[in-house]
């Protein structure tokens, strides 16, 4: 029987040698754990971002050319707006399914960055970054930065009042770079704010430069994962020398495609029902107007909060000025992300652990790392809260000054408290010996030759030595 499928397989195999390659790929084993799906959620959000983004690109105009709005949204009719803002209004009100695509794109961006951050936390707290995965850690950090860059550039494209203010603040941050800040800012923005080139430049970054880098790094991230094979949690039959799990085909493929469909479903639901970035309410960007309260997308929140918490200290050295913006918006993120990037090497300096690790740590077994991680998350979380200090002030009916003062003190105290509590919880959990992986793995019930039954209890295998002979 020579079906079309068989003939196609034969044709390809004879020319490309696909049969053995495909077989090896399909039989690849991946360990099963819910936390290993977090990175997949990021990947699938990216898929949604690409499809919705390409659709939006067909309608968006990256230009600050002034036009008169004459679309169906009555409150803005007759107003002078930029062509960029006008095209976003057109996508939202006139292009069929345009608003759904736009809102889904925006929601997907929020989920994309969120799932990257949660995936990063999983990798950090389980020690998955240890040798031999330091290179992939760096690739992952690069992906985080690119995702943030994509988010910020995309957010600024509609040229509305809220994003224009965000751009204005970003301009102040680049101006605050010591020595070269003014030049960097003028080269980036094309002149003094609001220089007309900025929207078309953001567009090139958002749809070309950053996506090219992003997709390249995603490819590298996955290729390294396949090459090194996935890590696994300790458990029955799992050693540093093997991978226990399910094959790529069929189980992992079914589960992953199922997850892709779920992620898309949730994003479509959000895009359809949950209004996001209603630029028609903010209006077009006008350099002397501002909306209040004003909050950026969640992942920029910590930076906006840092700017609100920052001390009013500017320095003049030999006649040169270091802006008060430098400390919270350049020095702090520089140090924080510097530590994050170099973490595998920083930790190694203290643990002196140079061995290869394919079995993951349980967070409780590394209380110092877990404590430092939660202290770091606390710092970012307090800054994120301060990013909404005006909203909390109104909600709690306290002056915004009080909110800021409390959070300034929290920034000093809370990370220490978070470290101590986490450390204490980890130690406590370790003492209880409640180890899911070491709980009795169950019994095997088998029929004996004489018709009876026997039960064999499955002992958790802890060491390589115990397992090796049986496996070979």
């Amino acid at each position: 029987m020579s079906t079309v499928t068989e003939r196609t397989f034969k044709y390809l195999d004879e020319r490309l040698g696909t049969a053995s390659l495909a077989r090896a790929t399909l039989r690849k084993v991946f360990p099963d754990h819910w936390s290993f799906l977090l990175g997949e959620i990021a990947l699938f959000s990216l898929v949604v971002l690409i499809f919705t983004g390409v659709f939006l690109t067909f309608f968006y105009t990256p230009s600050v050319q002034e036009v008169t709005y004459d679309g169906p949204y009555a409150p803005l009719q007759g107003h002078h707006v930029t062509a960029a803002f006008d095209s976003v209004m057109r996508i939202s009100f006139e292009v069929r399914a345009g608003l759904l695509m736009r809102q889904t794109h925006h929601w997907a961006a929020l989920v994309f960055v969120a799932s990257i951050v949660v995936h990063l936390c999983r990798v950090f707290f389980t020690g998955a970054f240890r040798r031999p995965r330091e290179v992939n850690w760096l690739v992952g950090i690069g992906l985080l930065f690119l995702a943030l860059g994509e988010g910020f550039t995309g957010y600024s494209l509609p040229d509305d009042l809220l994003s224009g203010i965000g751009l204005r603040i970003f301009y102040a941050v680049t101006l605050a770079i010591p020595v070269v800040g003014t030049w960097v800012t003028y080269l980036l923005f094309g002149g003094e704010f609001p220089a007309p080139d900025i929207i078309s430049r953001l567009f090139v970054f958002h749809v070309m430069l950053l996506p090219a880098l992003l997709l390249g790094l995603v490819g590298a991230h996955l290729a390294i994962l396949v090459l090194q094979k996935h890590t696994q949690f300790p458990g029955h039959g799992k050693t540093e020398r093997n991978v226990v799990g399910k094959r790529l085909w069929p189980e992992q493929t079914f589960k992953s495609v199922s997850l892709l469909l779920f992620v898309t479903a949730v994003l479509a639901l959000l895009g359809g029902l949950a209004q996001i970035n209603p630029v028609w309410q903010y209006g077009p960007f006008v350099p002397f107007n501002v909306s209040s309260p004003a909050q950026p997308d969640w992942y920029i929140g910590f930076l906006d909060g840092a700017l609100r918490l920052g001390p009013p200290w500017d320095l003049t050295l030999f006649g040169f000025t270091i802006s008060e913006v430098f400390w919270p918006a350049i020095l702090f993120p520089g140090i924080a992300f510097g530590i994050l990037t170099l973490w595998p090497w920083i930790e190694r300096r203290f643990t002196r652990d140079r061995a290869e690790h394919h079995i993951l740590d349980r967070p409780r077994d590394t209380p110092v790392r877990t404590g430092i991680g939660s202290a770091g998350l606390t710092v970012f979380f307090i800054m994120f809260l301060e990013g909404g200090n005006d909203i909390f002030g109104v909600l709690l009916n306290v002056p915004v000054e009080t909110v800021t003062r409390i959070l300034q003190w929290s920034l000093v105290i809370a990370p220490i408290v978070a470290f101590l509590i986490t450390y204490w919880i980890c130690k406590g959990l370790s003492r209880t010996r409640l180890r899911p992986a070491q709980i009795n793995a169950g019994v095997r019930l088998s029929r004996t030759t004489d018709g009876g039954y026997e039960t064999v209890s499955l002992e958790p295998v802890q060491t390589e030595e115990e397992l090796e002979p049986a496996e070979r």
Partner: protein
Amino acid sequence: MTDRDQQGSERVDVDRQTEHGPSNRGLTGGQRRAERRAAIALGVAIVAGVGLFVVYFAGGQTQVEGVLFAIAFGGFGVALGIWANHLLDAREVVEERHELSSGPAGRQALGDALTEEVGPVIGRRSMLLKLLVGAGAALGLALLLPVLSLGPAPGNSLKVTPWTRGKRVVDEEDEPVRLNQVPEDGFLTVFPEGFAGRADAQALLIHVRPGSLKLPPERMAGVPEGTHVAYSKICTHAGCPVGLYRAESQSLICPCHQSQFDVSDGAKPFFGPAARPLPQLPLGVDDEGILVAQGDFSAPVGPAFWDMNRGS
């Protein structure tokens, strides 16, 4: 046997995998139920997909489209999930890891492959190698030059605004602003004539109560009647328009990061992250009773930059 065949058969040998778990043939009762549920989920997905056609051609409706997309994708996903969990014959497999490193011999072989045929120049500190590096560096720098075309040289542009001595004060519609046009405790965003809406020139004209300003005499000289004071509207912190004015405490508040400035005391910051006062715009009145500028702002406007305090 060809080379590829050998590799292929070798690969089959290499993935030494041990399988655990059931290998069922024929559907159990639970699987039959799972199959039915998956079929229902796929049916729902098909209905939602057809619904999308109807909604689109009926004119489109964002919320309905979102829900139908979610149902179509979700139903499909549920079906595959059920299939993965109940209908596959998948087994737990143990696969061995192989050594990642090629070992010293492998690295040596790579080194040999790299150097074997490049000739005697590499390995010596030859002139040629140094020139090669030099040429690469020169070319690299030359290729970077076009980056400078991306923006104008900053020069003086951050330190000056279009405000000059004698420029009339106008509102955002380019209409001249007269003395006492703004009521007491009121404020207005103003620009130099011909530059309405200009970002770096925006200023706040505030009509304060008489006698409430505590400015040094040379600053008071730029405050007509002692009540019409003007400050740059660009926050000295991060550049947002300082758009909120509390008349009873005579303070300006930046809505972005809540820096607060004392209008009566030269717009000095008294809370929040801003470190420098809002620069003052010296005002006067012309023969027709229209407000005019006496010059540019008292300092560079907006956020700080490296050489803001260096002479221009």
